């Protein structure tokens, strides 16, 4: 088994054939002392579905629509869903769109809040053979497939494949077949049918990540490294635009916003490397695009938490959530329209283009400053150290009486530190920098939730003033909003009580020593 295989879901091995004629040769070669049960042919059209970030694929699962059936394959087990879904526009997008049952539960656990998107479709004509033992028990399945791959309107590509699928408990027989095929010099393909099909149309399965994935070298010039980081962030923004515009799911906007915030953070690193004018120009631009998406994101969060909020409220207050959510849904539609027109606006397009142009200018261009050539490791250490010290100092000043605003300031500072750590992750020993990030994340979660509670209470207060207390529906909603506000307030108090423990860990001797070890020098 090759390692790519382990992660790729079904346990089949695939072989690429140079021509359909290879089939007879293989059957003749494989047949000795194994019985091949009679042929059966199957023509099939399959559409593979996955989330934008290929969560199913990464989790070793494969979802396909075969005729009217949805089939989820995961590490050898197969789940068939033949009943249709309840979505109105004829296509299930979220796990909730499938009928209750194990299939839906399996999907929920992996795709969570992401939508399913058709990734690639294949038409295959398969001839199947069962390799059977002396009891006529199937021990290996073989299928010769001619597959035609099509991806969203692009041209079709034909591939000839042989799939060998194992049966549990018959590993020896499977290995034997694989050995025989390898012995015949048949080329084994990496991955599963999904990644092979994507590969045929020039795509790579599982290649999107919202994380900063650049690999830096310690002595790389700072200017180059920064452009790599910023370039990868710009790519993330661009990849998510379409999903935001089409309103596929809420994660597109979320990833987009994180990339924007990271970009703004990375811009604070360019002093002495690129001219201040560059920073000033784009900082304003990215701040604006971030700000313009705030409303939409806040409302998305509300919609995502509907179930949680319902459970938070005593049953008597729940009916009031309906009308409240009607307002939120309406506002969200408007916010979405507004932000989509921002993305389409000339000014946004122009600045993104200018930004891309700047990032693509070759190293040594005249607008670079002297520090541009300094090794990135020095920049990374110095700036991370500074951020950590600042965060520790801000946190130490907080006490019981500190206003929410000061917690917010620390939250922002921690975010910046987190981004710096992530930008430069590849320069440091993986386990140590991951430990630093983990501790920071625990503090961030506390601060993030705290801030969330604050923002949501404010918004709910706003809704109360919009409701009509003279109408029954209005009164119900006011009561529901009031109930939520008090629940959120209680949770906020709990979080504040927890804050000190989290901060102690973050600013304690162990973390200090770790930061010292990783980021001191220069």
């Amino acid at each position: 088994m090759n390692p790519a295989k382990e992660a790729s879901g079904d346990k089949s091995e695939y072989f690429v054939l140079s021509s359909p004629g290879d089939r007879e040769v293989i059957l003749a070669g494989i047949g000795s002392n194994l019985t091949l049960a009679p042929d059966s042919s199957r023509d099939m059209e399959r559409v593979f579905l996955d989330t934008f970030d290929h969560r199913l694929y990464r989790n070793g699962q494969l979802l396909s629509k075969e005729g009217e059936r949805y089939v989820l394959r995961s590490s050898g087990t197969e789940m068939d869903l033949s009943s249709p879904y309840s979505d109105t526009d004829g296509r299930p997008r979220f796990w909730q769109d499938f009928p209750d049952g194990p299939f839906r539960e399996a999907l929920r656990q992996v795709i969570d809040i992401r939508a399913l998107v058709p990734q690639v479709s294949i038409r295959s004509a398969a001839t199947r053979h069962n390799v059977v033992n002396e009891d006529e028990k199937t021990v290996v399945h073989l299928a010769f497939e001619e597959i035609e791959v099509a991806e969203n309107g692009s041209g079709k590509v034909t591939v000839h494949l042989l799939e060998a699928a194992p049966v549990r408990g018959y590993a020896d027989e499977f290995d034997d077949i694989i050995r025989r095929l390898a012995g015949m010099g048949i080329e084994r393909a990496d991955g599963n049918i999904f990644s092979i099909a994507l590969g045929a149309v020039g795509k790579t399965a599982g290649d999107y990540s919202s994380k900063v994935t650049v690999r830096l070298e310690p002595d790389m010039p700072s200017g180059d490294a920064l452009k790599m980081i910023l370039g990868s962030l710009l790519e993330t923004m661009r990849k998510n635009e379409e999903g935001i515009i089409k309103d596929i799911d809420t994660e597109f906007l979320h990833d987009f916003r994180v990339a924007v915030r990271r970009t703004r953070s990375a811009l604070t690193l360019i002093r002495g490397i690129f001219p201040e004018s560059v920073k000033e120009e784009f900082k304003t631009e990215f701040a604006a695009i971030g700000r313009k998406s705030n409303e939409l994101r806040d409302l998305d969060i509300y919609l995502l938490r509907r179930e949680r909020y319902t459970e938070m409220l005593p049953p008597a207050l729940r009916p009031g959530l309906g009308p409240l959510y009607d307002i939120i849904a309406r506002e969200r539609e408007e916010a979405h329209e507004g932000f989509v027109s921002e993305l389409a606006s000339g000014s946004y397009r122009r600045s993104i283009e200018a930004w891309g142009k700047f990032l693509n200018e070759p190293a040594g261009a005249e607008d670079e400053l002297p520090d541009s050539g300094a090794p990135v490791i020095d920049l990374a250490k110095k700036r991370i150290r500074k951020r950590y010290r600042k965060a520790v100092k801000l946190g130490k000043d907080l006490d019981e009486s500190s206003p929410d605003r000061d917690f917010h300031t620390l939250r922002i500072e921690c975010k910046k530190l987190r981004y710096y750590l992530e930008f430069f992750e590849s320069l440091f020993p993986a386990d140590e920098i991951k430990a630093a990030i983990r501790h920071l994340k625990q503090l961030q979660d506390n601060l993030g939730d705290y801030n969330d509670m604050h923002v949501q209470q404010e918004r709910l207060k706003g809704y109360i003033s919009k409701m009509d207390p003279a109408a029954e529906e209005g009164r119900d909603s006011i009561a529901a909003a009031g109930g939520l506000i008090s629940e959120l307030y209680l949770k906020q108090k709990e979080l504040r009580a927890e804050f000190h423990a989290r901060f102690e860990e973050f600013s304690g001797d162990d973390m200090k020593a770790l930061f010292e070890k990783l980021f001191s020098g220069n």
Partner: protein
Amino acid sequence: MITLALYSMKGGVGKTAAAVNLSYLASAGGYRTLICDLDPQGASSYYFRIKASRSFNSSKFVKGGRIIDENIKGTDYPNLDLLPSKLSYRNLDIALDGMKKSKFRLKRVFSEVTHEYDYLFLDCPPGISLVSENVFNASDFIFVPLIPTTLSVMTYEKLLDFFAKKEYDAGKLYAFFSMVETKKSLHREIMEKIESDGRNVLRTHIPYRSDIERMGVYREPVTAYLPHSESAHTYAELWEEMRAITGKGAEG
């Protein structure tokens, strides 16, 4: 994982036929299903054309652990695996006897696969023995096929007495009529009597039919090779009833 036993003190009442077909139906419905053949005769293993590996035996089975995982075999159907039995299972009682918590041993053995399957079906040997008591402890539900004859009903009464005496939860017990010949007035009378007694009796009756008998020739569940037959429909109805009882019935 929900564990269902197909159990009867009496032999030849349609336990294996039920276990094979019901487990197939569960798997076809999308549930990850394991059928464990506890009968040394190995009929359900035979129906699925599966032989246990040579090194596997009753003492390894009761010891449990990784050996279980290694000996589970895939049937020819998706989602359906089988743990085959060996002739040495005739000594299962001896293997269990003298072990610590000897009545809870199988429960522990099956805990190995709890997360891997939604349903575990136990195809049990006849008799009332230490193996049976292990089955009672390991199962969430025990389904007893009942031929509507006086003798069969008497045996069922004995089982109920045994449950009462040993303080097993009789609420786990469900009977269903098996090998029913509606032409026989005796069958009809006994079924009416039992059904009016207010016990846990399922509504679906499995008829006596030759296509069920013929499973031994085809070596496939009748629900798979003749999915549109009367027998297959009856098993499907029985499965729907069981699915509702086991708490997964509200789904789908």
